[in-house]
């Protein structure tokens, strides 16, 4: 069973060249899918299409077996996401930011202290989000994604700005969510050695084309070797 399946996904901005060409992703349910590729490969564009932030042009997108456009609201209710830089209301505290999304998702208020604890933000108090460090903002962004206990997480560079301790903590958190709650995680990252430690599947995108995809155990060498092999011009 696939959590995400795209077929022939092609996208271009304006009249320019296609930034995605015939991308057919297959993210298995219950897996941790590392979505890799050099800068400008089209990873963020793909993730934005998966979240309905860009209108689909060619190809199809199914999430949990449902077409995204038709079941957008139902699908988004089951996704937690963080795309590129953290999306936070700078004039509000971490707790107030979470309260906004708790209202939108309609989840219990008890989830707010829970996700703050899970992401190590329990002691931010009255500090406004704009005053937090980049690492803390990234943690808050992850806390927002986790708030409604979604079965699917789509995270774009979630460890950006985190210190080594933070990276390990967040990695352990993702592993725990995956093992204990069966959360499917799609994660894009440049930190190949870090990603290799916990993903079960990987997809390598280069110049808008999905060059390789499959379980990590099927790779002959390391993920890093595969990355450089598939992203050679």
């Amino acid at each position, binding site marked *: 069973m696939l959590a995400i399946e795209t077929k022939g996904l092609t996208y271009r901005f304006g009249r320019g060249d296609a930034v995605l060409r015939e991308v057919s992703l297959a993210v298995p349910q219950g897996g941790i899918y590392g979505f890799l590729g050099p800068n400008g490969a089209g990873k963020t564009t793909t993730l934005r299409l998966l979240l309905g932030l860009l209108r689909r042009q060619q190809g199809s997108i199914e999430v949990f077996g449902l077409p995204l456009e038709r079941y957008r609201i139902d699908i988004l209710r089951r996704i937690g996401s963080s795309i590129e830089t*953290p*999306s936070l*209301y700078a004039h509000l505290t971490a707790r107030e930011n979470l309260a906004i999304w708790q209202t*939108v998702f*309609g989840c219990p208020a008890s989830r707010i202290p829970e996700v703050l604890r899970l992401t190590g933000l329990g002691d931010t108090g009255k500090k406004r989000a704009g005053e937090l460090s980049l690492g803390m903002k990234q943690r808050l962004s992850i806390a927002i994604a986790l708030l409604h206990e979604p079965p699917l997480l789509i995270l774009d560079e979630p460890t950006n700005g985190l210190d080594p301790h933070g990276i390990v903590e967040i990695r352990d958190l993702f592993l725990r969510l995956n093992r204990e709650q069966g959360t499917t995680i799609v994660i894009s990252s440049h930190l190949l050695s870090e990603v290799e430690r916990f993903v079960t599947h990987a997809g390598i995108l280069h110049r808008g084309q999905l060059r390789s995809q499959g379980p990590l155990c099927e790779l002959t060498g390391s993920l890093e070797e595969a990355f450089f092999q598939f992203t050679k011009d």
Partner: protein
Amino acid sequence: MIPALRSEWMKLQRSSAVWLVLLSSSFVPSIILAARLTRPASLPSIYRATAFWESQWKMSWEAVAILLLPMVVMLVTSLVVQLETRNNTWKQLHASPQRLISIFTAKLLVILALLAGFFLFANLAIYCSAMIPALIFHDVRRPAAPVQLFATRSVKLFLDGLPIVALQYLLSLRVKNFMVPLGIGMGLWLAAVGGLSWKYIYLIPYGYTAMDFLSMSGARSFSANIRLLSLAFFTGISLLSAVIYVRQDDRG
């Protein structure tokens, strides 16, 4: 729709839009109060006048209806939209399980609520600016509360401001740069105020608050039904804006 509205309301905590409404609504009444407190000798005759509240209203609303109100409407609308643009939160908002039309409507309702708040606070401030001298100086008569006069005229001016809300909302949603919608709004307001004598002035709705103030205060009369035009502009521009918003290709 209710969660969308509640969440939009929660974003306003400590926001510039709320501060702007609070401070701007009490600006002119504060000046009037200060002027009266420094010249107590003239107060008994002013307060004895039969049309005391009429002149109080004119004095308080002249600069507001012509200048301040259109500016406040432009700024509040831009600031509410900028909460998302400046914080880079459009993508998070659009990736949440909410209908796009609910997000659009909730934001518009919050802007209208802030505008209504402006009128409420402005009327309270005007009332206080009149009553405080009467409470301080014993020889000054205490006038009765002008609830109906203030309420009916405020509703009229509120309706006059709706087209500005609609057009500024459309512009703010389309243009990320805070200054562009403001610049366009200022230009249209200048054109409207500068062209009050033009026979087709009703085509520029940025002058409706000024036109209606001049009508209500008896200074000028205009043949067009400003409030009907105002509602028509508001409805038309809002519908267009909603369609553009829902159909946009790039949502963050």
